[in-house]
């Protein structure tokens, strides 16, 4: 998975960043407790479970005794996370030692879960009411379609002219204001200038669906208040949604008004599919929704790939999608296009233009690997090694020269002073270059003041 700046947060980080009172309120919902628990690092999960039926606070020292010496860093991470999410509450006892205790609301909900088992947020509708439920495959294609439109729409300014007319019609169903929120950050719209994809925008195109989804959901949540929706309601609804069963129908009447307005937007993103019966209407969560809190990008979300890369740098993509073509165009030279095949070549020039746009080699390689055609996907490596190596080398070419602000010091009175200065600079870690014969040295700019002080003392 490409690690990019805009991906640095996931759903739970967002939850963790909420103020304490809001967070405590969130824990009133058992589904959020469950989702939060599952998102924790393994050790943290275990701690939460161990303390579940213990009412008195446990001292931090005791807990440290539970782990082996090599696990101490993991232990710290786990404890930090638990405190961050307010699953653990820290208390200082009489002996000035910190003790931990489970958040009582969280504890209560999880205890209930263990004793009564998990339940569902709402019951699916009986199958005699919902006449024609889509099969799971139908749902899958629906997701892909919807998602492609959404992705393309977000990069509207850049890709709109390339999308076929039928898709443009669908686009209009997306509310314009929402679109603007999504495009923020991905497109740079300067005055009097056609909107252009930003660095983030390019990276966005190469991310896998889950990462893209998360990016959009994050924007959606952070702008929720502008639309008159309470951020917390939205978060709890999204988490709740992830506990529904994929492919089951749920009655829209069970939702609150706010949730009903949200669900239309989610349908546009392909998180749910809305269907209308004779009397009632219902929504069907798709895989995207149920994977949301999990943000798993492993095989469960794996889609059929389409790209074959050969050792001679040619790339064959079995795809009819215009969006795919445009994505490939980001880093390769498209040579010709057949109805179901796009043939391109990865060249130095095409990659340079990609690098200029802020895409890095790892993103390109992981895109190629994740979308490898099933025929080559089972091969290891899916993308020939010489190609991946070359892509990395070409990226390195661009980084051959590294600029560092530095100062030159010369005209040293004696060899001793020169050597002492060299040692001093080396000790600070700022020595970049030295020439003993001519008694010259170059030191990083940030150490200039230290160097000046040192030289003054030498005199």
């Amino acid at each position: 998975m490409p690690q990019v700046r805009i991906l640095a947060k996931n759903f739970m980080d967002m939850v963790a960043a909420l103020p304490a009172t809001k967070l405590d309120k969130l824990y009133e919902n058992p589904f959020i407790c469950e989702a939060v628990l599952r998102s924790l690092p393994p050790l943290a999960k275990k701690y939460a479970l161990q303390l579940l039926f213990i009412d008195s606070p446990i001292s931090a020292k005791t807990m440290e005794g539970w782990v082996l010496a090599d696990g101490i860093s993991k232990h710290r991470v786990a404890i930090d996370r638990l405190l961050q999410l307010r699953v653990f509450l820290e208390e200082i006892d009489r002996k000035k030692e910190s003790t931990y205790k489970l958040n009582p609301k969280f504890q209560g909900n999880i205890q209930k879960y263990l004793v009564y088992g998990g339940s569902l947020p709402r019951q699916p509708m009986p199958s005699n009411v919902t006449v024609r439920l889509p099969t799971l495959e139908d749902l899958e294609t629906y997701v892909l379609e919807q998602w492609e439109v959404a992705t393309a729409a977000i990069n509207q300014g850049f890709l709109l002219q390339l999308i076929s007319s039928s898709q443009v019609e669908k686009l209009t169903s997306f509310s314009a204001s929402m679109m603007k929120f999504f495009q923020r950050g991905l497109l740079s719209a300067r005055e009097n200038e056609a909107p252009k994809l930003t660095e983030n925008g390019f990276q966005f195109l190469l991310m896998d669906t889950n990462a893209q989804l998360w990016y959009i959901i994050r924007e959606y949540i952070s702008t929720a208040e502008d639309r008159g929706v309470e951020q917390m309601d939205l978060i709890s609804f999204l988490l709740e949604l992830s506990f529904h069963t994929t492919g089951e129908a749920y009655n829209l009447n069970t939702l609150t008004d706010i949730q009903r307005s949200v669900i239309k937007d989610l349908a546009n993103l392909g998180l749910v599919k809305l269907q209308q019966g004779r009397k009632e209407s219902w929504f069907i969560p798709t895989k995207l929704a149920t994977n949301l809190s999990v943000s798993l990008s492993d095989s469960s979300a794996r889609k059929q790939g389409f790209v074959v890369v050969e050792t001679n740098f040619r790339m064959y993509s079995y795809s009819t999608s215009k969006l795919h073509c445009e994505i490939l165009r980001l880093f390769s030279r498209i040579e010709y296009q057949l109805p179901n095949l796009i043939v391109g070549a990865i060249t130095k020039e095409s990659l340079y233009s990609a690098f200029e746009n802020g895409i890095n080699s790892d993103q390109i390689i992981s895109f190629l690997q994740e979308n490898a055609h099933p025929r080559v996907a089972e091969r290891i490596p899916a993308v020939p090694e010489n190609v991946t190596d070359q892509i990395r080398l070409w990226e390195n070419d661009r980084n051959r020269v590294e600029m560092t602000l530095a100062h030159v010091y010369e005209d040293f009175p004696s060899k001793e002073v020169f050597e002492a200065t060299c040692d001093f600079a080396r000790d600070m870690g700022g020595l970049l270059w030295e020439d003993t014969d001519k008694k010259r040295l170059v030191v990083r700019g940030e150490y200039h003041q230290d160097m000046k002080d040192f030289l003054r003392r030498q005199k």
Partner: protein
Amino acid sequence: MASKLYTDDVSLVVVLLDVNPFFWGGALKKTTTTTNSPSVLSFSNFLNHVLPFLNSILLLNQLNQVVVIACGANTCGYIYDSSETKTSEAGVGGSGRMPDLCERVLGSLEEFVVNDQRTGWGADPTAANAASGMLSGSLSLALCYIQRVLRGGLLHPQPRILCVQGSPDGPEQYVAVMNSIFSAQRSMVPIDSCVIGVQHSAFLQQASYITGGVYLKPQQLDGLFQYLSMVFATDLHSRNFIQLPKPVGVDFRASCFCHKKTIDMGYVCSVCLSIFCKQHKKCSTCGSEFNQPHLVPISTSEQK
């Protein structure tokens, strides 16, 4: 790496529950005589501890899977499989993804016990082997299940077996149990054992020792859930960082192949390593003939 996905703690836990009526009947007798003793547990209390534990494993990760195998006096069988319920019961308008686990476990447990009893009718109920339960059979069932999962899917759950046993070891099952242990070792499946009986179990000590699992005999059975959640809920990944109970001592004694007795010292076939408590002329397993000690007097007579 904030977006690190914690998927390495996925686990597939096969739980072998001891439902041997001889053991639980004995436990019940003790509870009535010595009231509120912390070291004896009635069967219903036992389930009160185990069911939340199963729930807690399912809670820890959405990809976790729990399979319960009951191990009775005469038979053993699958009681519950968390992956099955997701597919088969989802459509039946009932409870969907996670139905009431307790209800399902209890339902099939009852069915199992009735069947188990019926199978036992033919045999002599006082036979010694009935008291020991079907550990070997349930271990094999668990391993078969794990093999199927490992071969079947792209998913690689990290499987482990948890034996919650109270019945004493049946020496007559020695060979079968050891074979199961070795095949578990080969397929890198740790066998955890939680002994709730009065005595330590030599079989399970060896099983956990050989496969790298955890062996524990809880002191206070009324806190069984806490033991289970502290020790046995630990996924294989976290075991590298957590202090777990160390084995105090392992009873390596073997059972002889001829009379199924547990022995300290005995005779071993030099060809197939079968163990006997008495000297034989011929190995009953591989058929190789042994040198007889009475050959010695013959050789001395020739010297004359």
